[in-house]
């Protein structure tokens, strides 16, 4: 009889520990799914004196929100890196103003270019996908506003998570004067899913 009790107790312990392992893993999976890597960065200060006809890189360096430690800062190539492999969605909001005279209905354009390394060295980078959004001077006081959104898949190269990210640029056709992209402008990126 005592053996039966002992076996019963051991069975219950095994069941409890297996359930503990499985449920803990499930909770971590679901909790992690609701907290996927996300980054929002603003310019932090005005980017001024932008000449017409020349695309300038926007350097978003001030974190407004980040939920992963160790997220890379801007790379040497000034693109904002993804945190890890996966399918990503990203976007940008720009508020821009004219520094002097306005060229009526001239174009303002936000460009987002996904950089993918051809090798492990970040210096060998090619452009493979670009997204953009263009608006025209509205003639309304208070500045012009732009948003753009895109998606990308970030894969490791030869098993290594080589750098890859998004280059954000601004270009305009306001030939009458330079323009400023305001400090509150921000970029964002969020991981949608795993690759496997």
């Amino acid at each position, binding site marked *: 009889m005592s053996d039966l009790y002992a076996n019963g107790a*051991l069975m219950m312990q095994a069941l409890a520990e297996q359930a503990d392992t499985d449920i803990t893993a499930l909770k971590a999976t679901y909790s992690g799914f609701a907290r996927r890597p996300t980054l929002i960065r603003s310019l932090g200060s005005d980017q001024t004196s932008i000449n017409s006809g020349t695309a300038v890189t926007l350097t978003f360096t001030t974190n407004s929100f980040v939920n992963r430690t160790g997220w890379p800062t801007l790379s040497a190539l000034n693109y904002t890196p993804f945190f890890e492999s996966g399918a990503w969605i990203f976007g940008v909001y720009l508020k821009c103003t004219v520094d002097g005279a306005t060229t009526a209905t001239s174009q303002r354009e936000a460009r987002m270019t996904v950089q993918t390394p051809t090798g492990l060295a970040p210096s060998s980078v090619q452009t493979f996908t670009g997204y953009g959004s263009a608006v025209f001077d509205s003639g309304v006081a208070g500045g012009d506003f732009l948003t753009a959104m895109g998606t990308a898949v970030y894969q490791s190269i030869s098993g290594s998570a080589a750098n890859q990210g998004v280059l954000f640029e601004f270009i305009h056709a306001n030939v009458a004067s330079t323009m400023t992209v305001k400090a509150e402008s921000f970029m964002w990126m969020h991981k949608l899913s795993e690759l496997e």
Partner: protein
Amino acid sequence: MPGSTTNEHFPYPYEGETVTAVSQQNLATAIDAALTVTDALRLDALKPPTCMAFRFGSVAITVNTDTAANLTSATFNDPTSMHSTSVNTDQVILPTNGIYLVHGETNLTATTTLTAVKTAITQNGTQVFAQQSSPKSASTGWILDTDGVVIGQAGDIIRLSGRWSGTGTGGFQGCFLHVTRLCYLV
């Protein structure tokens, strides 16, 4: 004195203790409770708060004035506390803290000439992001969308607003707002 597991603290009898119906029931009850919590996490992760509200039809608005859109129809609204199609229809109320993906679009028209249009997203009355443009040629209608994210707290109010500049009378012809949570803040 029973033992318990490391994480969920499921109770089990030690070897040598008497296994009873009560000890078995205690374990079953504890596992059931943990699964209930897990299922809530599953629903929260896979079905985040989402609202898709819209309005079709002409609504006149004052020229050169940012105006919140009244969204009197909805295709999806969960939890229902996010939006009402009859009361305060311009509001989408965030149910939890989080980063929210927001897409808004407006169809703005003018009876004579439309010179500028703007679609904006506001949070508690302050513009978070927007798109603004001018038709390059004479126009009386323009659809403009805007996409971005909002760092939100529970109870924050998100609105879609539009503005037109031009001559004649103008306003919304249609508008659409989609809000869904991407992730928690912590």
